[in-house]
């Protein structure tokens, strides 16, 4: 994945890596180690690698590129940025006594990366910092839990407005119940629909198609569909395909309710 190198995105990157590590068969403890290592590495990139980016300025936001793969028994995470040259592997380990003497304590981030991963390599190439983190694949992979079957709850807020709460993976296999529920609500005179996505952990193009179709149907019926409450991965997918410009999005359910002037 390639994403703007800003602190708000570090969590999204961690989720991306943890999902890949889970597929690779790591247990929860190892997944925590992967998250911590990637968190520390990417935090360094966004905090030290680039001059503070001014949103709204003409410059492009600096990017960080993260890829995951497997090779020779290792799960590999590659983090690439175009910031100032910085070799984390050359940093000394923190010294506790020194830490307590210093005005501002710190220096654990890189140490954690080294401790959490089995292999840490740094290369500077073509103006890029490339950090490759490796973790030995488990001898016995943990089976990946099957995605939760998608379900959908509809709560009537007023005769004209309903809250729709889908759950689980919204992909080609599982988007049907949501599609049916939205069609039913619009078909039965519901004009305001709030789609609360807090329990949706994955959105595929099939899921997006359902959202777009429902938006169109609501629009044709002189109604409106708004979305609220996003997990980071879902918000990222919406942004990548430009849906954040098409739909009205709210971070909280309260804000979405206010959109239809509903108080609970």
């Amino acid at each position: 994945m390639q994403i703007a190198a800003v602190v708000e995105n570090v969590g999204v990157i961690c989720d991306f890596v943890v999902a890949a590590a889970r597929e690779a068969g790591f247990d929860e403890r190892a997944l925590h180690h992967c998250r911590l290592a990637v968190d520390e590495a990417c935090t360094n990139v966004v905090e030290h690698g680039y001059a503070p980016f001014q949103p709204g300025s003409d410059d492009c936001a600096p990017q960080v590129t993260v890829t995951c793969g497997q090779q020779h028994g290792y799960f590999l995470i590659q983090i690439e940025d175009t910031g100032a040259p910085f070799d984390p592997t050359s940093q000394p380990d923190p010294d506790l006594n020194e830490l307590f003497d210093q005005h501002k304590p710190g220096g654990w981030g890189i140490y954690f990366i080294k401790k959490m991963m089995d292999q840490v390599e740094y290369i500077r190439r073509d103006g890029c910092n490339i950090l490759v983190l490796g973790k030995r694949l488990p001898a016995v992979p943990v089976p990946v839990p099957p995605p939760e079957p998608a379900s959908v709850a509809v709560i009537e807020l007023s005769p004209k407005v309903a809250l729709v709460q889908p759950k689980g993976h919204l992909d080609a296999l599982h988007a049907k119940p949501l599609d049916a529920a939205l069609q039913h609500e619009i078909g039965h005179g519901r004009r305001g629909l709030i789609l609360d996505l807090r329990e949706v952990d994955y959105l595929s193009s099939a899921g997006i198609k359902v959202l777009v179709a429902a938006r169109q149907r609501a629009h044709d019926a002189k109604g409106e569909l708004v979305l609220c409450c996003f997990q980071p991965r879902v918000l990222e997918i919406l942004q990548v395909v430009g849906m954040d410009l098409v739909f009205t999005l709210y971070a909280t359910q309260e804000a979405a309710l206010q959109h239809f002037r509903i108080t609970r």
Partner: protein
Amino acid sequence: MEIVTSEQGSVAVIEVKGRVDSLNAHQFGEALSGPLSGGFRNLVLDLVQVDYMSSAGLRELVAAYKKANKNAGDLRLVQPSERVQEILEIAGLDTVFRVYPSQVDAVGSF
């Protein structure tokens, strides 16, 4: 991350829930330094419900510990979660903080 601060006698008790990372470490640090600047010498930090802490959080924790010590006070912990305990150990900080099995024990230790 959620933070609840309460007073138990002369001790400020700070209960944290969720994740402490670079995005909210600043807020975590302020929750710790606030009572210290507001006249409390002793803090109890309850990390039972913190399931994730990165070095950014650890930095704030140590800064608050140093600040408390400078004022002849202390920052003591209620038994952290397994995840937080592990990073304290790796950082070599597990022997620095005094850790108690419950909030009551930690407050009572002062």
